[in-house]
């Protein structure tokens, strides 16, 4: 082990060590408030170290990890989502009577898995990261024990997650069989030397695609999403919707763009169909939902479809880097909007799974104008209406898809966005046009999160140039 090795995983090591320490402190001192503060400190410190890795471009452990700007960008998204999740969870856990310190520890372990996913450059490390990020999420989904919905969510997520993990491992085995290596640079070299068994490699790559499609909730591998998002505690769902999705896409982008661009002839049609199906099914089924959590679950499926569009042109090296940065920018815009929307959901939610129906939002516009305005901003951002972050994200994404020459897919994307306008704007209509007696929680950290994300959604869309600049620098290092 060299210094470079240590340096490349340094933020990760800090976070894991800190998580172990907080676990022990929590179990001995039993002071949840201290645990919360310590976790936030740990995430902020790790964030600092992650940012300091920008432009370093390290490789470590015999090319098993690569720290490029792509990884740094994603790590910042992961750690930022972790911080937002803590601010959402802080009062929510207390209110729901599930204020256990393990929440924060599991959150940290899950984030460390995601960070490992972003820097992984070896298929074995991808699998390790997948397990490290998933297992804490299974527990977190069931965190509202003994509520039956939550336990069901945890169980379902675990079974489907283990199942999809099987696909990934099988895919890795076949890729290893075809190229005699699990290292991404090794695989790329083998293909370039024409020493790879292409049919076997294609099957392996397709299986890996299926495995990660489960994680990012792509149709037809999305069945678990509505139940898990609905049953899991809202603060967990908010984190899961963005963290697990971003990590899954990080793996897909790294594996396919960096190691398998030569397979694009076989894989691109599959991704095309998956993306189109995901956008269509996600948006259409979301229209029929009357529960806000299920609606947001289907909306997250639909957004996975939009992001997957960026992968369609991964084989064309001129477009691939633009598409990747468009996807990264979209992930950021989705993360900000998503946390805001979930903050509003948490504010309206009551105990025992009540206060989640769309009808519970009636009258909020009159009684709580600030909250309603924030929710309207998030819904418009989800739809992709200017001047919101969602619009800018969709704009760059569609432009990258059209640059790749997939105009048909872009048309499907625009049309399904129109469908999505119906159910997003329905929430706004219910809030402003219908009378009701809504009850809304006002908790300091929750309000802060809502305000912060609402302002960020507007301001970042107007001043999107620096972020886009940052995202376009966050290219994958190719081999």
């Amino acid at each position, binding site marked *: *082990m060299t210094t470079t090795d240590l340096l490349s995983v340094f933020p990760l090591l800090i976070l894991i060590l800190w998580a172990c320490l907080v676990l022990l402190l929590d179990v001995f001192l039993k002071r949840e408030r201290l645990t919360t503060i310590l976790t936030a400190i740990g995430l902020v410190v790790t964030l600092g170290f992650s940012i300091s890795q920008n432009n370093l471009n390290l490789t470590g452990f015999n090319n098993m990890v690569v720290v490029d700007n792509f990884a740094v960008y994603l790590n910042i998204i992961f750690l930022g989502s972790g911080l937002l999740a803590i601010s959402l969870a802080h009062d929510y856990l207390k209110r729901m009577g599930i204020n256990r310190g393990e929440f924060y520890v599991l959150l940290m372990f899950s984030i460390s898995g995601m960070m490992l996913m972003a820097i992984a450059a070896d298929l074995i490390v991808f699998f390790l990261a997948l397990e490290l990020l998933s297992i804490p999420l299974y527990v977190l989904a069931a965190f509202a024990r003994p509520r039956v919905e939550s336990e069901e969510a945890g169980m379902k997520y675990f079974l489907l997650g283990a199942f999809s993990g099987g696909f990934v491992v099988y895919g890795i085995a076949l890729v290893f069989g075809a190229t005699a290596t699990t290292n991404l640079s090794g695989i790329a070299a083998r293909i370039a030397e024409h020493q790879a068994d292409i049919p076997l490699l294609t099957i392996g790559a397709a299986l890996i695609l299926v495995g990660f499609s489960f994680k990012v909730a792509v149709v037809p591998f999305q069945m678990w999403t509505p139940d898990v998002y609905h049953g899991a505690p809202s603060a967990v769902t908010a984190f899961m919707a963005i963290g697990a999705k971003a990590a899954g896409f990080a793996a897909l982008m790294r594996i396919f763009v960096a190691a398998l661009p030569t397979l694009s002839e076989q894989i691109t049609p599959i991704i095309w169909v998956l993306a189109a199906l995901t956008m269509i099914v996600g948006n259409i089924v979301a229209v029929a939902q009357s529960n806000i959590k299920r609606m947001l679950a289907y909306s997250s499926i639909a957004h996975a479809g939009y992001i997957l569009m960026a992968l369609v042109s991964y084989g064309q090296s001129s477009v691939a880097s633009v598409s990747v940065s468009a996807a990264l920018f979209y992930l950021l815009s989705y993360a900000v909007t998503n946390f805001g929307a979930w903050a509003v959901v948490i504010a309206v939610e009551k105990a025992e799974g009540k206060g989640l129906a769309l009808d519970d939002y009636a009258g909020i516009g009159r009684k709580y104008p600030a909250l309603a305005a924030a929710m309207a901003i998030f819904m418009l951002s989800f739809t992709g209406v200017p001047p919101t972050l969602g619009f800018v994200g969709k704009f760059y994404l569609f432009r990258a898809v059209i640059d790749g020459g997939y105009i048909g897919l872009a048309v499907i994307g625009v049309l399904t966005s129109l469908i999505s306008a119906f159910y997003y704007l329905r929430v706004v209509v219910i809030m402003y046009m219908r009378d009701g007696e809504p009850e809304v929680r006002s908790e300091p950290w929750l309000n802060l999160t809502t305000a912060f994300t609402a302002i960020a959604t507007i301001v970042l869309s107007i001043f999107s140039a620096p972020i886009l600049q940052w995202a376009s620098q966050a290219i994958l290092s190719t081999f």
Partner: protein
Amino acid sequence: MAIEFLPIAILFVLAIALAVFIVFLGSIFGPKRYINTKMMPYESGMTPIGPGTRRMNVRFYLIAVLFILFDIEVIFFLPWAVVFRSLGLFALIEMLVFIGILLVGYVYAWKKGALEWE
């Protein structure tokens, strides 16, 4: 390539045929005595107590999980011990890190009362 697997295919066919043949012989020539003792579920030789589909105490699962955890720890020790001399100090530090992580889990499980059986 396919021809290389021919002996294995022949072996498969022979094995299945032989097994079917022996079972067939047994069903023709074997004595058939149906007594109560033979109808009982097999419980390692002793007389079974209670039905076999009883509900298990959930604590057994906890113990099983902990057992697997620390059992696997020992499995990792074995290859480590075999090559320890050639790896030297580095291996010792690696193993200490490994044990340290497990120890955190152990302390947590202990403190949470997972090892108590009241």
